[in-house]
């Protein structure tokens, strides 16, 4: 229930750099639920691996004359050297700022003249580059996407400009209490682990990244055998195959750098960080380490978290803290399903004076779901939602391309679309209780509060 106005668009840059939050939202929205719909929608992509090792997934959809080509490269911010946090993001941001045959200006003009889009984005575990074009411009879309992935030149003046742009955005992000809180939270939860830094890096690390670092990261990490290409839309498989061969065929296979990052460790006691800001609301993030996307308990955790705080109006957190106490506009809980265990977190905003009441409300719900089994009704409703809402997760070309590439990344297999239903249906009340006990820790959490601290008087 929200207020909308025909104005008030925030500057685009707000969306960049809010990496942690965006990832968690996107993945909960796409991978949590899946199946009956998949079958109903007949999602049967063709999968093949090219001679240079690129995994390609093609899904023909002839409803509209549009084509989405979505590349996922298995290198993200988790691969940044500690002293160069923000490197993967800088590389991604520079892909479309000049290639061996096109300047930044030419790239923008060519794709925009046909009304298409070309976007790049670094995440924690991977980087994506996508194009969306009308069917008549399919060749151009493939050509430009391949050009920025195979032949970027990272011109010195563009490196300088984009780096200073990212630093400026980082400063501006401090006006967003949600981002400030999430960043501080990740630093507490992922102490000593690459997930601790925002994808766009820090004010200390980004200025140190040189063109040579960028070039080096690119040449070692951007490899066809580290790339998943999802193609969805009004394009026959044979045409897709031919265009992949033509545009990506010359990409040289390589040996990916070995990954030596250890799994993040659990924090062993409550940790609190309070950040003073002259605001009417306290922005609160509370949580701890969660699970990886490949954890077999992922499905039981999805059901449990739906009941706890991911189920919108019908979740326990919403019911208690919004509807019964009127303390917040929104409250929700999320598990970030990364390749390594991501964070579990509860986010909310409440006026400064009610911060303690809201925090205690959250802890009460965390304890309660660990102590008492959920009701039969709650379990049935949660499973019905997760299964039944699957078609909504796959109802656009862009969503399909993203989900296909993630199913491949996490090694879920293309039968994931038929297995998911079964995994969700199998979850019992005992499973929910077990995973709540195992993965929720109301006694050793990280708590961040951003707000007017004198009014909030946080008593954790």
């Amino acid at each position, binding site marked *: *229930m*929200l*207020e*909308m106005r*025909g*104005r*008030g*668009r*925030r*500057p685009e*840059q707000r969306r960049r750099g809010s990496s942690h939050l965006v990832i968690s*939202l996107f993945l909960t929205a796409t991978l949590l639920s899946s199946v009956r719909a998949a079958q109903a*929608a007949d999602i049967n992509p063709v999968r093949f691996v090219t001679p240079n090792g690129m995994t390609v997934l093609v899904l023909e959809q002839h*409803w*509209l*004359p549009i084509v989405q080509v979505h590349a996922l490269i298995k290198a993200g911010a988790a691969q940044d050297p500690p002293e160069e946090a923000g490197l993967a993001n800088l590389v991604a941001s520079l892909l479309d700022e000049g290639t061996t045959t096109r300047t930044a*200006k030419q790239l*923008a*003009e060519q794709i*925009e*003249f*046909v*009304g*298409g889009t070309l976007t790049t984005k670094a995440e924690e575990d991977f980087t994506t580059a996508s194009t969306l074009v009308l069917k008549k411009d399919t060749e151009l879309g493939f050509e430009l996407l391949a050009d920025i992935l195979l032949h970027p030149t990272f011109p010195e003046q563009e490196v300088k*400009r984009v780096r200073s*742009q990212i630093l*400026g*955005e980082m400063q*501006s992000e401090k006006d967003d209490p949600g981002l400030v809180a999430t960043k501080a939270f990740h630093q507490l939860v992922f102490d000593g682990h690459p997930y601790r830094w925002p994808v766009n890096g820090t004010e200390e690390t980004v200025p140190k990244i040189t063109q040579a670092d960028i070039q080096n990261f690119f040449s070692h990490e951007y490899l066809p055998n580290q790339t998943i290409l999802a193609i969805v839309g009004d394009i026959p498989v044979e045409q897709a195959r031919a265009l992949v061969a033509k545009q990506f065929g010359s990409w040289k296979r390589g040996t990916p750098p070995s990954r030596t990052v250890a799994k993040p460790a659990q924090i062993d006691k*409550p940790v*609190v*960080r309070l*950040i*003073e*800001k*002259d605001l*009417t*609301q306290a922005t609160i993030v509370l949580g701890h380490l969660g699970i990886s996307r490949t954890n077999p308990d992922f499905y039981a955790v999805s059901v449990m978290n739906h009941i706890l705080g*991911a189920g*919108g*109006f*019908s979740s326990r957190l919403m*019911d208690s803290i919004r*509807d*019964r106490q*009127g303390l*917040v*506009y*929104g*409250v929700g809980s999320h598990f970030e399903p990364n390749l390594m265990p991501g964070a579990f977190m509860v*986010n909310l905003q409440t006026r400064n004076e009610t911060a303690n009441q809201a925090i205690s409300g959250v802890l009460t719900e965390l304890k309660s779901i660990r102590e008492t089994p959920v009701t039969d009704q709650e379990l049935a*409703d949660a499973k019905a*939602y997760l299964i*039944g809402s*699957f*078609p909504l997760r*796959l*109802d656009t070309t*862009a969503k399909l391309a993203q989900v296909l590439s993630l199913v491949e990344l996490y090694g879920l297999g293309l039968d994931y679309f038929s297995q998911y239903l079964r995994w969700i249906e199998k979850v019992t009340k005992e499973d929910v209780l077990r995973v709540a006990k195992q993965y929720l820790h109301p006694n050793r959490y990280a708590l961040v509060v951003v707000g007017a*601290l004198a009014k909030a008087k946080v008593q954790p």
Partner: protein
Amino acid sequence: MPLYHAGRTALLVLPVLLSLWQSPSAYASEVRESVLTNGLKVLLIEVPKAPVVTVQVWYKVGSRNEVMGRAGLSHMLEHMMFKGTAKYPKGTFSRTIRKNGGNDNAFTSQDFTAYFENLAGDRVELALELEADRMQGLLLDEKEFQLEREVVKEERRLRSEDDPQSFLIESLFAQAFLIHPYHWPVIGWFPDLNAMTLEDLQRHYDLYYSPNNATLVIVGDIKAEALLPTIKRLFEPIPKGPSPPLQPIEEPAQRGERRIIVKREAQVPFVMAGYRVPNYTSEDSYPLTILESILSQGKSSRLYRSLVYEQKTALAVGAEYSLLQADPDLFYCFALVKPGQKVQEVEQALYRELEQLHTTPPTEQELQRAKNQVEASYVFGQDSNFRQAMLLGQAESVGAGWRHVEQFLARIRSVTAEEVQRVARRYFIEDARTVGILIPIPPRSEPAALSEAR
């Protein structure tokens, strides 16, 4: 969907919607229109590509239908619409939709209030049953209202009070419109929220929530022929309501630039310039739409190229224009100033870009790019049932009518470079401009960040 995030998302939906407002007949899905005996307009589009459907009920009431001292009443009523009826008590609405695998929510603007359910195609009747029930069956309860008022105040803190840019936008509109209700924010001011009573809500509900003041839009995996009898069975028993008063409030012509300065704790300055422009009723709305694209669409647009890429004085730039407004609104441009740059210089650079169009028309290449962008984004938009339905619902609710959509693209295609120049000269003038500037001030105390283990 989690509400907080739904809200953030929907704010970003509008620009897309704007570009959706075009309809090349080549791809347009067929709209089937019916009007029930009680005046409810029904628009149906069959989209069999996926087994999903969006159901949207649009009421022609928004903050423009409010009076001074009760700003935010429409939005507050939108929140109360989830508090239950005799048949479906509090909490059952969303729970019922959820356990059927659906998502539901609502949004309010200056001109309309809309409710939606996105769910599997075979559950469409459930959503219709629930929407028909609350069209006139809402139970307004004092205790629930007291609680929900606090929720809405938290929403105001979140969206407006604690966000420097939103705060500036709110102030700018209050300056640009002195008499017209676009003066106040959709979410309302705190004193108005506090003064609101249950009687205010009841009166608003009785006056505006009726079939003859609403549009039902359904897009997705449906068979229109088969669904219409169901719609009639559920909605036709609802009696026709009063005819809401027309509110022909005209904002007088502006006679000279207005400026609003906001000083508050913030990291970087923000500059906006809003110009009074006409809505869909004017032929000028088409070249204005092209102008918006030329100025702000993509990295080849004028504002990005000039301020972000070449001068490197802005972190982000944009232009906003929606012709789908019930009354004439603002065309506004903005720039987020890069740290270390002078706000005055960025402001002047914005004007230079606008005024250059006074003397020189856009190039043919620029014009064609803008038209192609408008057309492509229309086709891309058809990929989403929700966006298609929103476009129709909004067109109906602001008074343009959904058929206006159909001729839009043809009209866009015929816009000439000279028209763009003429419109820039007519509207981008200093005396009709309202300027808003956010000047950051340092924090009152040094950020006392402390970590402690307990």
